[in-house]
């Protein structure tokens, strides 16, 4: 063979047929080695025992927090030492950092979950009484048991306030976002900058603005409507910004195709841009709503606290759920605090429901349709086709009739 390669040129060697070998075993690229597991377990065991010794026998320290902190530090130390037996320095650093990253994630998520679970568990006491949702606090004094009084007035107040705020925010916010994207120009850029700036407005300053611009000047009394105005000032920039981002994601060739087919700008926006971005717009509005519902301080300034059901947004104080929480927990009475936690749990559940709604109805990228949406679009297309065919048939029929008439 070697001879042939060196000596004769210009000859082609065909490879000899070799029996197919067994597929080589694929190397494992992922997964955890047993070694690594033992490293972690060993460090855990040694650090825990060391801490236990330190705390229980040697010094007799008591604090739980101290135990956890010392345990964690010792774990890092012993993990580094154990890793160092077999691995280079780079690997030790990598592992320690990975542990730190995991602990940050675990601390954060458990702290946040703890806040939620703490509220829900302490709220359970009040939530167990049905009257909590069917009565207002009108008849209930601070010393009354939980079987009297409820937060119906706050629920209704929240719904009315957020309803009015949404009735202003949705049309105005989406129109503005459409303006920023579809019409554009220098003025639109300026509006976008100002709207972005307004997302920085602290909510209490929004409340202060409504208080001094509308209430102190006598334009609007302290009422649910005033609170909705403050919430609107808060929500509007958030909704505009989020919808702006969503509308920008609509592919330009969709717009161009529609315009090229002869649609007007208005038809393009109404039939192409908005439906394509619908999912994202829904998310924008719902997340804005969640922020608006949770606002306490603007309502405190502009509407105020009341224990009575008030259905008229134009007159009299109208309390909302977060403000009711704030008011309940100011009291030293345990029943009032239990009510406060019940109200907080209700508010939290409301926000949770809104969040789940946002995830179910929205959250899809621009132009991505659900199966049902796809079927609906198909049906619409078929109906359009039929309509056009009918139109053509009718026109041809009319033409032949005309011709016949002329002949006759």
């Amino acid at each position, binding site marked *: 063979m070697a001879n042939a390669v060196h000596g004769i040129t210009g000859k082609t060697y065909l490879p000899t047929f070799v029996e197919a070998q067994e597929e080589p075993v694929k190397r494992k690229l992922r997964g955890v080695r047993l070694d690594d597991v033992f490293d972690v377990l060993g460090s855990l065991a040694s650090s825990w025992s060391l801490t236990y010794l330190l705390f229980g026998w040697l010094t007799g320290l008591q604090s739980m927090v101290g135990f956890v902190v010392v345990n964690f530090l010792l774990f890092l130390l012993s993990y580094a030492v154990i890793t160092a037996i077999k691995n280079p320095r780079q690997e030790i650093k990598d592992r320690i950092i990975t542990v730190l990253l995991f602990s940050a*994630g675990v601390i954060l998520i458990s702290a946040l979950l703890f806040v939620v679970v703490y509220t829900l568990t302490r709220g359970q006491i009040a939530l167990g009484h049905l009257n909590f949702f069917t009565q207002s606090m009108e008849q209930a004094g601070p010393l009354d048991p939980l079987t009297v009084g409820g937060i119906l007035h706050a629920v209704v107040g929240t719904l009315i306030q957020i309803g009015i705020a949404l009735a202003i925010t949705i049309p105005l916010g989406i129109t*503005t976002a459409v303006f920023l994207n579809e019409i554009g120009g220098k*003025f639109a850029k300026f*509006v976008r900058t100002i709207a972005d700036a307004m997302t920085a407005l602290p909510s209490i*300053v929004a409340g202060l603005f409504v208080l001094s611009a509308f209430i102190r000047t006598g334009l609007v009394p302290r009422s649910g409507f005033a609170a909705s105005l403050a919430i609107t000032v808060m929500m509007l920039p958030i909704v505009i910004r989020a919808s702006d981002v969503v509308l920008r994601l609509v592919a330009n060739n969709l717009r161009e195709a529609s315009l090229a087919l002869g649609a007007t700008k208005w038809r393009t926006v109404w039939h192409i841009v908005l439906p394509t971005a619908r999912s994202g717009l829904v998310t924008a509005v719902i997340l804005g709503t969640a922020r608006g519902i*949770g606002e*306490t*301080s603007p309502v405190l300034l502009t509407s105020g606290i009341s224990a009575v059901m008030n259905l008229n947004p134009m007159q009299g104080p109208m309390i909302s759920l977060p403000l009711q929480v704030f008011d309940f927990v100011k009291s030293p009475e345990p029943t009032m605090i239990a009510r406060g936690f019940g109200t907080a749990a209700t508010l939290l559940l409301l926000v949770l429901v809104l969040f789940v709604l946002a995830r179910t109805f929205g959250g899809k990228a621009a132009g991505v349709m659900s199966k049902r949406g796809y079927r609906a679009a198909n049906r619409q297309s078929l109906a359009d086709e039929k309509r056009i065919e009918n139109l053509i048939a009718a026109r041809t029929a009319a033409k032949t009739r005309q011709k016949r008439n002329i002949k006759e």
Partner: protein
Amino acid sequence: MAKESFKTYLRDPNTPAVEFSERRPLVALGSLADKVFTWVARSGGIITLGIMVAVGLFLGLRAQYAFGSQGWKFLTETAWTPENGKFGIAAVLFGTVTIAIIALCVSVPLALGTSLLIAEVLPERIRSLAISLVDLMAAVPSVIFGIWGVFFLQANIIPISYWVSSTFSWIPFLAVTDKSGNPLTDPSAFTSSAVIAGVVVGLMVVPTQTSVMREAFSQTPLGEKEGALALGSTRWGMIRAVVLPFGRGGIIGGTMLGLGRALGETIAVYMIISPIFEINPQILKSGTNSVSALIALRYGEASDTGLSALMAAGLVLFLITLVINFSASSIVSRSRSGAESN
């Protein structure tokens, strides 16, 4: 016919060249519907702009009286007694900034770690769950963090505060002493400190920061990450050499967005702190204040001076958060990771 179609026709040199007509204008005249649409959309923009500008202008105009009466002393005076014509935001601003800095000390390590964990370490399935959880937490109302702070954290943090203050009393801002410098041991000296408010506000802003940072990290070009790994770096080496420099804009921008929210937070701070109108540099000691808590405390004041003073305080707060937000968004959009996102 078929033959002819292959023939090339040259222009007869004797016929004069056709004058090209001028370029057709491509401006659409627009139908009535379009005109109405443009007009409606534009007026939507104008109304929005009007509302926003009205808020700014109104705050500025109403605050002017307070600024005018106090001058620069408004920024250096600690007392808040508009009825005596003597007020300033030095104390409340100091408290606001202290609380915000403590909040950042809590939130930034957590947010940075969690966002790196989500973007680089977690497997795909758990990742989307973690993202949803963090996003959900961003929607939890601040009053809920507030009651958690009041009913859980205040009671449980006292031993830790006490231990830190007695062990590290040689660090001036960690000591808890009375006026003459004797250490305080009474639990009530620790219950409503800037640290507790800062921790609560910190937890509140972590989700915002995490999602901004994660967004930036997740846009790191795969090729560069694979390059680092192929050259033999460990995961941390890859993160340090590729992901962190790429996402630097996101880290700074996210931190500052969180700072903006922390400065403006009202109700949780108001529930936790016990308001005082002097500068208290001992962060573990009860008694601090913030601009927004001041507004929530004093909004009921009837006098025009009082309201104008509050407006001025609110305006200063707004201007600070505005500067922070704008610099945050310009940092994000100038960085590599932010160039393609909004």
